[in-house]
Structure formats: C-alpha cells, structure tokens
C-alpha cells in the first residue's frame, strides 16, 4: 500500500466553497465558478506516493501546488476528497490526533526556511522532537547527528541569522529529518536559493535520500529541478493535475499542449539517458567465430568494425575490419586475439549530455551495457546528432502546432541484428 495517497482532493477558497465544489463536480465551467466569488485552488487531485519515492509536484505560481501540499498534512482542510497517510484519512481526524500524525509521520521543509531566529541551530533542528516531548539529551544528540549529516557540524551553537541561505535550508532539512517522520513535505524548499547553492542542496538531498529512503513530496516551479529530483512528477495547471509520470515520460510523451510547452525549455540532454536513445547494434559477431566469417559478416554489412559478444551477449570488445583483414592475410589467428577495448561501455542511466565527448573520441558507436556487462544497445554518433536534431524540430512543432502530436519523439529506430 502506498504511504501517502490523495483521492480527488479539492480545495476551494471562499464563502460558497461547498456550493462551488458541487458545481465543479457537476462539470461547471470556470466562469460560472468565478461568479460565486470563490477561488478553486486545487481541483480533483488524485495521486499516490510510494514509500521511498521522491514525488515532485510542479507548476507555475498560482497553480495550486502550495495549497495541495498544505492539505497533505492538514495545515489546510480539504473542501472535499480524502488524504490518506498510512491508510488514515487525516481530514477526519480530531485536532489532537492530527497533531500526533504531524509529530510522528509527516514533517515539512519551508520555502523561506522558517527557522526560529531566537533558537540556536541545534535547538531549531531539535524542534520536532521537542514538540514530541523527547528528553533534551536525546533530542539534542539526534539533532547533532542529522546536522552532521547535512554538513553543519560545528555550527550547532550559532543562530540562524548568522548562516547563509543554503546553510539555513540545511538546518530546515535537518529539522525535518531529525523528527524521524517517514514522509517529508518540501514546499519550494530550494527556490529561494541561488542556482549554484541550489544545485548543491539538490545533490545533498539526493545523497541523503539514497541513504535514508524517506518518502518525499517536493513542490517546485523549476522544471529542471523537478526532472533532477523526481522519481515521478505531477504537473499542475490551474489547480488540476494534468500529468503524472517519470521525467522521461513527461518529456517524451507530454499529455497535452501545456505540458509540451512547459518542457520545451528543458535541457533534454540532461534528462534523456543512454537507455532512451540507444539502438540495437547493427553488427555483432560472436566471440567464437573464426576471423574469416567475422570479416565476411562485416563486409556484408559494409561495416568498418563490430562488437564482439560472448554467447550470453556479454561484451568482449570491438574488432575492426582492417585488423581482421591483416590477420587473415598473415595467417589464421583466433578472433579473441584481435579484440580491442578501445571503446569503454557506459551504463544505461548515463545522461545523453555525457555521451557527446565519448562519441567524439571514437568512430565506433558507444556501447551500453548493464552491470553484468551484457550489451543492451549502442549509440552511434549519428543517433546522438539526430537526437539533437529531433529535439529542435520537436520544439518547433510544439511552438507552432495547435494540436501537438501525441507521438513521442522516441529516438530508437528498428535496426537489423545480424546475429538473430
């Protein structure tokens, strides 16, 4: 079961909220709702967040994302719908039980840090545990531990005012982590930081997440941040969630025009991975083939080189036609001796941006292998360039087209495999 779940959560601000909610459910248009003098901030939002996942909610300001996150811990009441934490509907909880949920299950990191200026860094980090009634000794040792984890050892006795923005948010993060909740809500947590610092704390978050495996709901208006952090991303527009998917899904298969426009500016080479652009290798030869056979295969395919594979498709290396031809002229030698490791393989999750240098170094395609060394696919230089080209044409399309093509600009082409 998912740890956190929102079921058609709706929030309407205004006196006639309940009436507006009924009309929204009946399918009233925006103009009719506005006439009631209410503001629908979040409309019919449903999603699940799995344990250990970073779930990013992305949208421009006014899209309702801050309202949404505040309903997840009951800072705002829902107008209708349910928010389930560990299967418990928090909207139905009495105040005291809701406070217990906040103490034990959900903590929060704020956009402007919300550190208490009159408390030391240590006392700030220990706040969640203090509210819970944990003894001073225990909560301070916990707070120290997490301050160390976010890289603030030695700053415990300083006041927040003496810290830089990036350090303040590290304290905010330590405060949320020290409280020991499974779920952490992060409301535009890094938006107030300048770009270099932001990247630094993003890395920190990813690093900590790798170690602690928290369940994080992260709100942002920055698409690059969303793509970098999110295991899954929900795109919000005017209070509605318009698409939920992984970074690649949203990039390659935007649900509508709005999402497509939104993602048009993204640096795709950072989001697309080797796995999403790789192709089937055109020419491979088994390692136990004789040189003559190998040479014939190469010539038939008019290829200058080929990847050599074991029987279980593990990559041995590459051989070039010229080397085989020379070897055949000199006399019979096993193919294994002619194999070189000139082109080191890359793992499938490598960002495309990191492949350009590799591709420039060698004429051969860049091989993609998994942990066992099995060849998953290859990325020829042409494919990389085509990927860039396709990106550009895709962007042009999005800007001009009124009806965006539902087809994803998937770059994997069907290739023929000699072996199969």
């Amino acid at each position, binding site marked *: 079961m998912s740890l956190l779940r929102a079921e058609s959560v709706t929030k309407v601000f205004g006196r006639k909220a309940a009436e507006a909610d009924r009309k929204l459910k009946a399918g009233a248009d925006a103009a009719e709702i506005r006439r009631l003098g209410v503001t629908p901030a979040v409309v019919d939002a449903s999603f699940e967040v799995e344990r250990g996942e970073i779930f990013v909610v992305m949208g421009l300001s006014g899209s309702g994302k801050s309202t949404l996150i*505040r309903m997840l*811990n009951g*800072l705002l009441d829902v107008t209708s719908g349910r928010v389930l934490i560990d299967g418990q509907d928090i909207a139905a909880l009495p105040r005291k039980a809701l*406070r*217990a*949920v*906040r*103490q*034990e299950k*959900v*903590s*929060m990191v*704020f*956009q*402007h840090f*919300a550190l*208490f*200026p*009159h408390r030391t860094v240590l006392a700030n980090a220990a*706040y*969640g545990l203090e*509210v*819970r009634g944990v003894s001073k000794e225990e909560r301070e040792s916990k707070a120290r531990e997490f301050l160390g984890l976010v890289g603030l050892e030695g700053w415990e006795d300083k*006041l*927040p*005012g*003496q810290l830089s923005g990036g350090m303040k948010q590290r304290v905010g993060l330590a*405060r949320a982590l020290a*409280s020991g909740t499974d779920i952490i*809500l992060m409301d535009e947590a890094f938006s107030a930081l300048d770009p270099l610092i932001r990247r630094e704390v993003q890395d920190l978050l990813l690093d900590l997440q790798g170690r602690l495996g928290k369940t994080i709901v992260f709100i942002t208006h920055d698409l690059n941040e969303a793509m970098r952090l999110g295991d899954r991303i929900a795109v919000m527009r005017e209070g509605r969630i318009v698409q939920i998917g992984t970074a690649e899904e949203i990039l390659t298969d935007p649900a509508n025009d709005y999402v497509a426009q939104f993602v048009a500016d993204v640096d795709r080479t950072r989001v697309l991975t080797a796995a999403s652009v790789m192709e089937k290798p055109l020419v491979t030869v088994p390692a136990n083939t004789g040189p003559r056979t190998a040479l014939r295969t190469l010539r038939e395919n008019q290829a200058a080189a080929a990847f050599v594979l074991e029987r279980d498709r593990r990559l041995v290396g590459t051989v070039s036609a010229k080397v085989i031809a020379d070897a055949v002229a000199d006399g019979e030698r096993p193919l294994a001796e002619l194999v070189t490791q000139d082109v080191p393989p890359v793992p499938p999750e490598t960002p495309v941006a990191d492949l350009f240098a590799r591709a420039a170094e060698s004429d051969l395609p860049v091989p993609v292998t998994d942990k066992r060394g099995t060849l998953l696919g290859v990325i020829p230089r042409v494919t990389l360039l085509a990927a860039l080209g396709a990106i550009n044409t895709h962007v042009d399309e999005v800007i001009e087209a009124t009806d965006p093509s539902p087809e994803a600009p998937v770059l994997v082409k069907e290739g023929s495999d000699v072996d199969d």
Partner: protein
Amino acid sequence: MTLTTEALDDTLPRVPWGEWFETGVTWLTEHGGFVFDGVTTAVEGVVDGLVDVLMLPPPLVLTAILALLALFLRGWKLAVFTLLGFGLIESIELWSDAMDSLALVLVAALVSVLLAIPIGIAAARNDTVSRIVRPVLDLMQTMPAFVYLIPAIFFFSVGVVPGVVATVIFSLPPGVRLTELGIRGVDREMVEAGEAFGATPRGILTGIQVPLAMPSIMAGVNQLIMLSLSMVVIAGMVGAGGLGGVVLDGINRVNIAKGFEGGTAVVVLAIFLDRITSALGDRSAVARATAKV
C-alpha cells in the same frame, strides 16, 4: 429662512445621551460599590507600599542604584544622566513628590501591561475580538481624559486610585495595539512550521509567536509607560499628588519657577524610564538574534 430652520430643528428630538451615561454611572456607584472599594484598597495599598520602598534608602543611594541599573542595561551615558537628573530632583526638593509619581506610574503601567498583553493576544488570534476591541481602544485614546476622570472620582473618590485608573485607561491602547500588531506580524511560515511539527496552539503562542513579537510588544510597553507619565499632571488634578500636584500648584499660583521645576522632574523620570524599557526590549532573544546579523 430662519423659521424653516427652527421648524426643522424641532423635528429632531434631543437624545438624552449624556443622561444615559450618568444614569449608568450612578447605577454602578450604587450597586458596584464593593468592587470599587476593593479596587481602591488594593491599588492604594500597592502604591503606598511601593512609595515606602522607594523612600526607604536615602535619595542619593537610590540615585546611585538607578545609575548602576542604567549602566548595566544601557551604558555610561544614561548612568551619568541618571546621576545628574535624579541629583537635580533631590536638590530642588522634589524627591518625595517624584517618588510618589514614579510609584503611581509604575503601578499604573504594570496594571496596563497585565491587561494589554492578554487583550492584544486575544485580538491577534480572533478577528471578532479584534473588531470589538479596536473601537473601544479608539474611544479610550481620543476621549478627553477629564471626561472619564469625573466618573472615576465618583467610583473611587479623590486620591491616588482615580489617578491610576485614568492613567491605565489612557495608556492601555498602545500596549494592546502593538501586541496585536506584533503577533499578527509574525511570519506566517513560522507559525506553519510550529503547526507542521505538531505543536499545540499554546505551544505555538508561547514558543513562537510571543518571542517573535517581543520587540513589538516591548515597544508597546515603552509607549504605554510614556503615556502613563504624560498623565501625571492630570492625575494630580484628582488629588493623586506627586509631581502633578507640584505642577498644578505652579499653574494655580502663576509660579513660573515651581511649575518649571515640577515639569523638569517629570521629564527626567520620562527619559529614564524610556531608555530603560527600550533597553529591555533590545535584550529580548529575538532582538538580540536579529541584531547580530
């Protein structure tokens, strides 16, 4: 023309507005006498006790003590001022009057603070309370002091007590307003942080809102004390004595010298109390935390 105007004037009957108020006052005096007597006894007791304490050490010793306090809280400049100012009061033979006024002002300010801060907090947390409190405060601040001095004499007879009551009424509003303003001005995210970690409303109030509003609350306390001092002369009119009595005496006898001396003593007290209370405000945790940045 005149005829028509008169005719019109007659159409609007006179509302017995003042009479209603008088009836109310009379009713209160008749039925609430025991309450007022209790208040009178309590306030008189506290003020007299405080005067006794202030008069206990010889004037120059108390001057030295106050100067040390000034040195500790504020610095050597205020300490020097305290020595000179209080020395002057003693030298112009107004010491006992000054202590009477100081005691009255301190008691009135204390009562005022004890009322103002809870009312201010209630107004900050509840819009309805705020809407009711605001016009009442306006009334208290703008209604000429003499107007409520008269019923105060009815309730408490002449002496220190109506002086204290009038002073409290006049000095309460800035304390309430600045407390409300301070608490409402606390960053929304700070309060949310308290809520998000599961703190109780009381915990948020005492642990976050009041400490963060403290600079503003202390500014209110400071203003409240200054307004109390400005009421010293008016308190003198209802027989509270002290420096107010001295100044009034100077006015009545057209004695320029005496009036000026009494006035100067009030100013010395005012400057001393103002600097001391604002120094206390600067020492609050939040003020210190933000000053270091």
